[in-house]
């Protein structure tokens, strides 16, 4: 369980998150949706402990970050480190002994090439593989489908389902509503640093229609495309 109480975040005078109160139950998958700049990534960084914040974040763990696998929107890679070495580095940092990395290469990545030379999608898949092999209990996946090919998209969707089966807690932010609808138990809609809606599985279809209407509205007509 992760319980967030009155979470606010400021960058200087600029307030990004406004007193958020959210509870994530163990073994459930949650989606966070919202426009760019709504505060999704900042929320994830606060939960991970990568940002200072006001408010409180409780969890079942003494140190949540030690049980957390964090997939960043743009994962960081070190220069002149191969994919295999990257996985080893992340496993070492959690004292995980990896026997055969090659066997666990489910995305068929060129593990003996420099990870910094990978394409955007390959980087994402490598970073995801690395955090999965860390044997975490909680996963935060920030835009896991960005830049990823359709086959891998299907694999990632199944991985999320498998994590749920294994009673792991998963938080996902994505702009691809269909995959969220397929994997999530609840979806939170964020706008300008606030949670404006919490929707359960039964109402996902309605949320998608509402979001479409809200997001698109008559904006395209304003372009007067000819």
């Amino acid at each position: 369980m992760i319980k967030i109480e009155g979470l606010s975040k400021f960058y200087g005078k600029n307030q990004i998150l406004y007193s958020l109160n959210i509870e994530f139950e163990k073994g459930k998958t949650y989606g966070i949706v919202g426009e760019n700049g709504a505060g999704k990534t900042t929320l994830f960084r606060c939960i991970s402990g990568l940002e200072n914040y006001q408010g409180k974040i409780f969890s079942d763990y003494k140190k949540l970050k030690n049980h957390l696998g964090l997939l960043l929107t743009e994962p960081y890679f070190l220069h002149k480190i191969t994919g295999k070495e990257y996985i080893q580095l992340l496993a070492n940092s959690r004292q995980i002994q990896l026997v055969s990395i090659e066997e666990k290469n489910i995305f068929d990545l060129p593990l003996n090439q420099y990870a910094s030379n990978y394409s955007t999608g390959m980087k994402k898949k490598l970073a995801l593989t690395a955090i999965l092999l860390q044997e975490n209990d909680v996963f935060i996946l920030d835009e896991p489908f960005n830049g990823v090919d359709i086959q891998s998209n299907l694999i990632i969707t199944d991985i999320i389902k498998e994590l749920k089966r294994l009673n792991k807690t998963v938080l996902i932010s994505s702009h691809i509503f269909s995959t969220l609808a397929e994997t999530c138990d609840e979806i939170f809609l964020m706008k300008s640093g606030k949670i404006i809606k919490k929707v359960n599985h039964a109402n996902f279809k309605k949320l998608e229609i509402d979001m479409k209407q809200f997001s698109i509205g008559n904006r395209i007509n304003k372009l007067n495309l000819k």
Partner: protein
Amino acid sequence: MKEYFQLQFKLLNRKIIDFGVPLILAYTLLPVLFTLVLNYLYSKTEFAIPILILSSISFIYKLSEPNRNDFLKTIFNNKNYKKIRIVENLIFSLPFSLFLLYKFELLYFLLLNVLAVCFSFLNFKASNNLIIPTPFNKKPFEFIIGFRKTFYIFPVAYILTYISISETNFNLGVFCMLLIGLVCLFYYSNLENEYFIWNFNQSPKHFLKEKVKTCAINFTILSSPILLTLSIYFHTQIDILALFFLLCITYQATVIFAKYTAFPNEISMSEGILIALSFMFPPILIIITPLFYLKSLKKLKTILL
């Protein structure tokens, strides 16, 4: 093109200011220091000119980095791109070529400038993707990255050690070990993203212990051919050898602590001065090593929670 160089000049000034040095001081003191160092080198060794040319080339080489060049190619047309690369290389080699001119080494002056121009046309993309195997696969990352960047230094050090044995020159042998120690020291100069520290699930104390342990083990592996050879051939001076070996490990630990003292910023000027002072007067390590250790523990607590 003019705007590009103006922008580069602005970036350079920002870097100097961020490092904590006033611009006037940097532009007056650095050329003086540079000339003094080169003069010293010139007076001390007959290999000064090759060292100087190689140093200049190593600076120029960095400008040939593929991503940087691809970016420039997307902004400028081919003619202007080539012009920029030539001018950049000549600017970077200018301090060295001016020194050669000052010493009337006209042939080398010409050679350096020709090399600078030639390097502007070279593409290092292929070599940059070359995967050099390392013996450090189980413990990424500093030694893997560092080894891949400096692998050519090790055979040179081992050959020099062989010469030190054949010429019965113990000092040269110790120099080879110190060279490897110094090279390993630089492996810790690059800052990693805080994500890689955040991932570590143990205490700051344990984090630093692991870093120093890995560094000591890997340095021992790389210097073991030298250590073993010198121990056999100069066994009467094994105590001196052990002293220098321990000194290397202490310096490495100090630099690791200093790095995390300043994290996520680079080592600041005050820390840099303290480290530089310790090279002139090693006993100062007794004070600065624990000082950096305590400061780095404090800094790491904020990331490792």
